[in-house]
């Protein structure tokens, strides 16, 4: 644990040594937020908008998605991008040679704070500002559920990361498979309740679970969905983690070190 903390300290120090870059990232993030909510503003100015979603609720939904994404990209999904690249260029062997637990090593060396500073704090501030505007009465229990769903989505994507790593041991050029999987993320840029189709909603909750980035945490905090969904999400997280863990083990057995 102390090794992880030491590693995190070094990485954070590294990021803060380039303050102007951090400032540029902040400007880009603000611009990105504006760009993401601008289409909603135009649609709401011309129509009544989305059923059961006020414009501020939609902002909250969007920022929740960015907030969760900043955590997922920092702690969960990066190994799924990094390791397949290392398998492809042959540098994965260097990781396997180290006398450290392979899962521990993969996790620690893939921590990516580029998506944490300043994104996480910026989105957190915006969520705190928006919270009273959307008119929800504060409750510790709904905040707890909100955080729990974000944790669940991090665990699910850690499992997915494992699946990517395992597949890369069989198919070295994984880029397009990953792109194919992430295509489904676009479907969650709007609340999934607009789809009015149970198959699509189930697909986006349990198979391509991007709805856990924004729809479920935001909706549970706003009281739009019931807490009955939580057990099934916990089971999904456990299933993805188990599949990820065992597929990495299986993939490593078949790893042929055939990269560059």
């Amino acid at each position, binding site marked *: 644990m102390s090794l992880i903390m030491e590693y995190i300290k070094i990485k954070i120090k590294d990021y803060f040594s380039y303050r102007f870059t951090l400032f*540029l990232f902040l400007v*880009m993030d603000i*611009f*990105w937020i504006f*760009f993401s909510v*601008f*289409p909603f503003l*135009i*649609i709401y*100015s*011309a*129509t*009544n*908008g*989305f*059923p059961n979603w006020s414009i501020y609720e939609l902002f909250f939904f969007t920022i929740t998605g960015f907030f969760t994404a900043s955590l997922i990209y920092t702690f969960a999904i990066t190994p799924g991008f990094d390791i397949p690249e290392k398998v492809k260029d042959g540098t994965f062997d260097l990781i396997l040679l180290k006398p450290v637990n392979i899962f521990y090593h993969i996790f620690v060396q893939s921590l990516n704070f580029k998506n944490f500073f300043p994104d996480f704090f910026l989105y957190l501030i915006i969520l705190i500002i928006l919270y009273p505007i959307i008119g929800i009465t504060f409750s510790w229990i709904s905040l707890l559920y909100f955080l729990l769903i974000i944790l669940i989505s991090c665990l699910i994507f850690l499992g997915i990361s494992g699946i990517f790593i395992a597949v890369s041991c069989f198919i070295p050029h994984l880029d*397009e498979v990953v*792109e*194919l999987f992430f*295509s*489904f993320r*676009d*479907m969650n*840029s*709007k609340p999934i309740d*607009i*789809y*009015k*189709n149970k198959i*699509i909603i189930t697909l986006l909750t349990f198979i391509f679970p991007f709805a856990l980035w924004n729809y479920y945490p935001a909706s549970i905090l706003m009281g739009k969905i019931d807490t009955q969904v939580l057990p099934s999400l916990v089971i999904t997280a456990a299933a993805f983690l188990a599949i990820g863990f065992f597929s990495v083990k299986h993939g490593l057995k078949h790893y042929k070190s055939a990269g560059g």
Partner: protein
Amino acid sequence: MNYFFAFIVQAFKEATKSRFSFFVNMLGKIIFFIINFYLWQAIFGYDGREVINGLRMEETINYMLFISIMNGIVHTHIHGKVMMDVKEGTIATKLLKPLDYGLQHLAINLGKSSFVAFSEIIPSIIIAAIFFNFRLYGLFYFLISVASFFFSLMLNFFIDLNVSLVNFKFIDTYHAVGFIKNVFKNIFSGEFFPLNFFPQVFQGIFKFLPTTYMIYTPVMIYLGKLSATDIILSFIIQSGFILFFYSIYKFFYGRLTRSFEGVGV
């Protein structure tokens, strides 16, 4: 001219190699179809009006479906290509070729877009027609609209080419400049939603923006919303903008290559 066609053919052949990209692109289109099919049904259903800012629900959905069907044609990677050429020094070999640097890339882009047109348009029209009630508003309008999209490709290409010249001086700005350019283009070309949805004050401004003629105008032709005079006028304006951006490119490109130090070489 022979060299130009040779580049087109070569790019077309190369595009046929990446078969998996076809599946990724098709899946991307289907996802876009699903989003817009349900999204606009929800918006129109909740609003209650049959016509919003001149478009019916079915027309708005078809507007969005048609964008997805044709989008691959307009797409260009020139900004990234110029950045890589400058950064890695491969521009040196490209400057030796018997064709202008920008035209080389235009030919490659045309070759790739032609492959996309051949491989993706018909399957995506069939999928959209079967599952999402996509329909043509007349074969004439459809064909004219496809022609207009090829003009859009050139317009989009020369806009991007001009922006990419920034790489010659400031290579580290690639991501920031590309991001701002894409945001501006996506919103003001009508790719996210029809420009009719913008407040009235914007409508006058859009007539003078080149981005309007990249997506919005060709799709309005497909919907049969433009008169014959407006269609002819739109082609003239597209051509005017293409010439305008090409002239700007020639002006700056000459000066930039003279002062180019070839760091990557």
